[in-house]
């Protein structure tokens, strides 16, 4: 397929979403701080949303369903970010660090 009309094909978006998801996985594993992990998980959510929107545009019989699902993902992601960051702030206040390797109080 010619490069300039690549935006009219479904697999373009699926591969793109998979790439965002891969970046998210890489970040989630290599990051040491909790905030970095949260950023990586937001990347993964973005990849999933792109997938939903692509299927919604090209395959779904009713193209409003995928958009509504993506809006729900956004709302849940916002709630998750708020809760996660407040936990990070609370952890920092208690331990004076946000490094995931220092939070070992429950280690036997």
């Amino acid at each position, binding site marked *: 397929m010619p490069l300039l009309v690549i935006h009219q094909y479904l697999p373009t978006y699926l591969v*793109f979403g998979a790439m965002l998801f891969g970046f998210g996985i890489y970040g989630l594993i*290599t990051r040491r701080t909790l905030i970095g992990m949260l950023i990586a998980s937001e990347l993964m959510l*973005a990849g999933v*949303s792109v997938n939903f929107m692509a299927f919604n545009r090209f395959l779904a019989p009713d*193209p409003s369903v995928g958009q*509504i699902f993506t809006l729900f993902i956004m709302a849940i*992601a916002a709630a998750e970010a708020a809760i996660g*960051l*407040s936990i990070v702030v*609370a952890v920092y206040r208690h331990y004076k660090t946000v490094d995931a390797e220092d939070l070992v109080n429950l280690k036997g």
Partner: protein
Amino acid sequence: MNGPDAFAHSPSLLSADGLVGLVFLVMIAVTLAGAYIAATSERLVRAVAGLVVCFTGVGGIYYFLNSPFVAMMQILIYVGAVCVTISFAIMLAAPEHKKKTGPSNLLSGPLAFMVATLVFGGMAALALRTEWEPFAKTSMGTVRDIGIQLLTVYSMVFELISIILLIAIIGAIVIARGGRN
């Protein structure tokens, strides 16, 4: 599908279709660059900046997927709210000398790269090899359709989302406030 066969020939770069394709390619490149920065940069502040670039690009991708409303929501919620919240948390919770991040030991970098590549390769192969079959469209997916669906079929979920957001707000305040007099 809106008949990709009709556009199977490559348009000239200076025609409207060609420019649209060029904008799309640039947007993909910018988004992936932002995602790379967000996943790998040394400093968390730069990671958040990369996340902003990435989310803005994803908003542009949504435009190409016939969903300007979701694109606006993407920029409003992710860029305007989530990224700003994360940068506030970095300012509040990351001490200056610990703002650098990186792989915790030598093995985790290559291993993480391998896992991410495997997952990406698997999903990409699945996406490219499957014969996707579109259904006949029953609606256009306009903002009006979204609004009608949200207040009829999905009204219960809509209400639940509102309650979840309320609980999240209250919970965030309670958790972050703990320890103060």
